[in-house]
Each structure stands twice: as C-alpha cells, then as structure tokens.
C-alpha cells in the first residue's frame, strides 16, 4: 500500500497549494499579455470590463457560495469603490495603486459594517437588507448635503493618467486599461483561491453547513461572517475603482439594481462558490448586452425591446439555472473533466501500471 502511494506520480506543483496558485497566476499573466496585444481597442475595452466584473463576481461567489450569505446589493459596494476612486483622483494626486487600494479599503470597511448586521440576519432577511442597500445607496449622490461633493445625478467625471511614456507614445489607452484590470483580476483570483483553501475558508464552509456545529467546534461564527462580508465587499470596491477608471465616470445611473443583478447572475450562472465559474459568468454577462444590441440592430428591433433583452435573459438564467442546473457552468465543466479523465487518463495509467 505504501509502495503504491509512493509510486503514484505527484507533480511538484501539486504538492503545495501556494506554488500551484503562483504557477497558475504567472500563466494567467502570460496569457493576459498575449491576448491584450492581439486584440483591437474595442475588444480590449470589453476585456477590461470582463475583468472588473469578474473581480466583483469572485467576491460575491465567495460570500454566497462559501459562507452561504446572500447579497442582492453588491452593486452598492461597486458604487462606493467607484466614487472613492473618483474622489481620490480628483482631490489627491496619489499613484493609481494607492487610489485602487483606497477603494478596496473603503469598500471593505462598508462591507464589514454591513457584515456586522449580516451576522445577525439569515437568508431572506439578509437578502432584503442588501436589496434595500442597492435601491437606496445611489440616491445618496443626489442628497442635497452631498450633491456638491458627489456631483448629483450627473455623477463625477474621472480622469486617470495615460499609459506611461516608457511604453511608447502610441501605446493604446484601452490596452493599458486592460492590463491594469487583468493584473487586478489575477491578483484577486490568487488571493481568493488561497483564502478559500486556508483555515478561514474551512471555517466559512463549516458556518454555511451548520452554524451550531461550527460554533461547538470552536469557530467564531459571527466573526467569520463579518470577515467574509468585508473581504467580499473589498473586492467589489476594487471592481468599482476599475469601473470608474475604464468608463471615466462614477454616476448613480451606473449603479442601479440591475448591476447587482448582473453580478448575482454571473455568480449563479458560473456556479456559486467557484472562482473559475465567476470568470465564465462575468464573460457571459458582460458580452450578452453587446451581442443582443448587435442582433437587435441587424433585426431592426425597437429600442424598448432590445434594451430589455439582457434583463429578461438575466431573470430567465437565474430561474432556470437554480431550478434545473444548480451547479452552473463550473459543475458542467467538472463533469466533462471527470468524464474525459475516466475515458482517457485512467486507462492510460492502468496500462502503465500493468506494464510495470
């Protein structure tokens, strides 16, 4: 038995989670470089949009999938991140890294605050409270005491630095933004992947499965829930900061209920709790409105129809996926992988073993 275990091939990168995630991250960065240099400006812009959507979705999927808390209002944290970046760029001359970190910190702080309430709320109660946050927060921008600071209904215009001159004078702005967003996405996925496999990730799963059992085995339930909410909101804040930079805008109209909805759709569609699923989901919900707009233009549909197609599809996806395919895309990918492995890899291994 021990001889068999020793003989089983363990590749070096499978031995340590950290090494594995680092390898994957480096691979991700290389892919990022080649993809962004081969895409045109518009595609790079979409790439950047996918990246910041995936960052927010990854945060949400950790919250809902791992610790079992639901948020219908993650768009509110994205809004907070966007306004933080807009204000920092306008009033202080900080480097971009610090500005984005500011959005992370402010998003995380508000998230922890909500998390304190969330730790006492369950299921639908938490969903209702976060829904109220998503509906109510954007109106704050137009509140008479804050209108001068936040720009009212028109919002704030965000001007960020152009690409550094060392990249050449004709370096496209879109590719630079795609780089920033892509780098942030890789860092986010690296951090969250390690987090979910760490002690706190295990605590989160325990809390989701059975709060009483978790408490009995020494897990601080409320603290775990608050920390999870804070982390999740911090990444939504980062996504918001990137949103502000890519779209040069932070305005209440951009952070409606349907933003929170598209994040939830991406998380559910990809497979709740799976980081890879968050990326698939983000790709689909980002590209979907563009596709439908193109199709509608070709078919000459009235605006009221095609503007609402994404909404209808988001709704249908949420209902159908939850009822019929609760695992989302990621569970399909996993099943396909297992199928392929059973079909090709395992016969190969047995053949090798019998030869030995």
């Amino acid at each position, binding site marked *: 038995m021990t001889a068999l275990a020793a003989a089983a091939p363990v590749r070096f990168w499978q031995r340590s989670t950290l090494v594995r995630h680092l390898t994957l991250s480096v691979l991700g960065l290389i892919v990022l470089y080649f993809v962004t240099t081969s895409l045109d400006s518009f595609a790079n812009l979409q790439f950047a949009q996918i990246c910041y959507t995936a960052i927010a979705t990854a945060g949400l999927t950790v919250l809902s999938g791992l610790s079992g808390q639901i948020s219908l209002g993650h768009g509110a944290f994205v809004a907070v991140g966007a306004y933080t970046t807009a204000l920092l760029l306008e009033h202080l001359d900080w480097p971009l890294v610090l500005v984005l970190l500011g959005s992370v910190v402010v998003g995380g702080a508000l998230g922890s605050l909500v998390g304190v309430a969330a730790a006492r709320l369950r299921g639908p109660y938490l969903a*209702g409270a976060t*829904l109220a946050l998503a509906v109510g927060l954007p109106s*704050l921008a*137009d509140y008479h005491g804050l209108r001068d600071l936040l720009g009212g209904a028109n919002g704030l215009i965000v001007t960020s630095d152009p690409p550094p001159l060392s990249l050449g004078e004709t370096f496209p702005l879109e590719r630079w933004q795609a780089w920033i967003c892509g780098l942030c996405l890789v860092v986010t996925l690296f951090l969250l992947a390690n987090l979910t496999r760490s002690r706190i990730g295990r605590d989160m799963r325990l809390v989701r499965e059975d709060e009483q059992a978790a408490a009995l085995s020494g897990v601080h339930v409320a603290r775990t829930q608050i920390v999870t909410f804070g982390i999740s909101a911090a990444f939504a804040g980062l996504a918001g900061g990137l949103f502000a930079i890519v779209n040069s805008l932070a305005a209440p109209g951009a952070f409606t209920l349907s933003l929170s909805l598209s994040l939830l759709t991406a998380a559910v569609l990809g497979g709740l709790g799976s980081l890879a699923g968050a990326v698939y989901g983000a790709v689909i919900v980002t590209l979907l409105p563009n596709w439908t707009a193109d199709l509608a233009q070709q078919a000459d549909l009235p605006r009221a129809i095609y*503007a609402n197609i994404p909404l*209808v599809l988001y709704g249908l996806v949420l209902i159908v996926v939850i009822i019929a395919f609760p695992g989302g895309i990621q569970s399909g990918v996993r099943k396909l992988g297992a199928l392929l492995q059973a079909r090709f890899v395992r016969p190969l291994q047995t053949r090798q073993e019998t030869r030995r």
Partner: protein
Amino acid sequence: MGRFLDLTLAGLTSGAVYSAVALALVLIWRSTRIVNFAQGGMLMITTFIAYTIVSHGGSYWLALIVAVLSGLILGAVVERVLVRPVEKRSPLDAVVVTFGLLVLLQGVAGMLFGGTPRSYPPAFGIAGFKAGDRQLLFAPNDLWIVLVVLVMMAVLALVFRKTNLGLRMRASAFAPEVARLLGVRVGRMLTVGWALAAAVGAIAGVLVAPSTFVSPTAFDAVLVFGFTAAVIGGLDSPPGAVVGGLALGIVLSYVAGYLGSDIVTLASLVVLIGVLMLRPQGLFGSTKGRRV
C-alpha cells in the same frame, strides 16, 4: 405644528400602501417560509394591466377588478411553476428564483410599455379636506386608500379565523405533514395562499399608482418598504404587517419632510437594520419565526 400634522397624515396614507404590500409578503411567508422578492414585479405587472384598461377608457373600478383577478392567476401560476421546485431547498434558492422573476417581469414590462413613467388616475379627489379654513394634506382618495387596506386586513383575518378554507390554510402552513394525513390538499392550499397574496399586492399596486406613476422600476422602492414593514411587524403576523406599514410610512414621511426625500430608501434600511438588531423577531413575531 401644521407641517407636523401634514407629514403625519401623508405618512399614514403611504404607510397604508406599505401595509398592503407587507400583508402580501406575510401571507406567503406564513405558508411557505419564502420572502417573495418578485412581489414588486408582480404588482407592477397587474398595475400595468389595470393601466391598459384605464388608458383605453375603462373605469377605475373595472381596472381594479381585472387587476385583482390577474393577480390571483399570476400568483397561482408562479407558485405552481417556479416556487414548487425550490420550496424544500435552501432559502438561498428561493431568494434567487423570486429575484430572477422580479427582473424577468421588469424586462417584459419594459419591452411592452417602455421605460417612461405613466400617470394613473386616482379613484377620488386629491384636493385635501378642509378643517376650518385650513386645507389638510389628506384627500378623499387618501381616505379611500386607508379604508381599503383596513377592510382588506379585516377580510383576511375573517377568512383565516372563521372559514374552513382559512383553517386548512393555517394547518398546511404550520404542520403540513399532519394536515396532509388529515386529508388537506396541502399543495393546493399553498397555491391558494400565493394567489391571495398576489391579489392583495395587485390592490396595493392600483392604490399606490397615482402617487408613484407606473413604470417597470417604479415599485422597487415600494417592495423595499413593504419588506421593511413586514419585518417590523414580525413577518408572521398580518396585524403586525399593518401596524408596521403605518409606523414606517409615518417615520419615512418625517424623514422626507425634515431631512430630504432623496434618502428615504436609505432611512428605511436604517429602520430595518435597527429593528432587526434590537428585536430580531419583529414587534409582533415569535422568536421561532426568525430562524430559517
């Protein structure tokens, strides 16, 4: 002092509508332990149906009756088709499905009617009553709204307490297995519960439409306020929903009058979290009701 009275009266009227939405949520929570996040979307659709009738020259009353009937049908269909499969699963699933239905309905309404808000006629006059030589901020139409909600609550209480149907519905909600053994068609009772709730929501929609206008997203805030009201009242108790709705309406009216109307939704969030922190079971609820 006059302003205070005006704000109180205005809050009473809007609070009555929140009570009606809260009643619909409570009806569904009692029978299925699900918070129906699609409630706002369902009452938006029935209000659009009523609007179509009114705008084609139909009377207010015909539109109200058709809205209630379409609410009954919509509620029953939603329960049978969408809620039945997720009823016994984790509360997360039900939340996502009803939220999905909310936006599906908003998208469909946007396709059919566009995003422009449309005005809806009130049932009665909107010029305030006169008290001496002072005009109050309380009109015949406001009186109508408050009366309808009170009558609705009384009728629902009668149905639940005094009729055979009400007894079977309560039995299905509290002990479905025992009820089934005693010959109650539990599934059918749940469908009836959803249909009733959607009808109550439909009435609320028609009542609130003159002041909010009608558009796909016009009732998002009404849903949030209805949820808050229901939670204040304990989610389990119909009288709690009505008291919670009236209290919330009056508080929010003061917030709008003294602080600014832009932060009313946020104020309701503060009220919601405040109540849940101090008394998680709500003012009228039992402790058991909170655990899901």
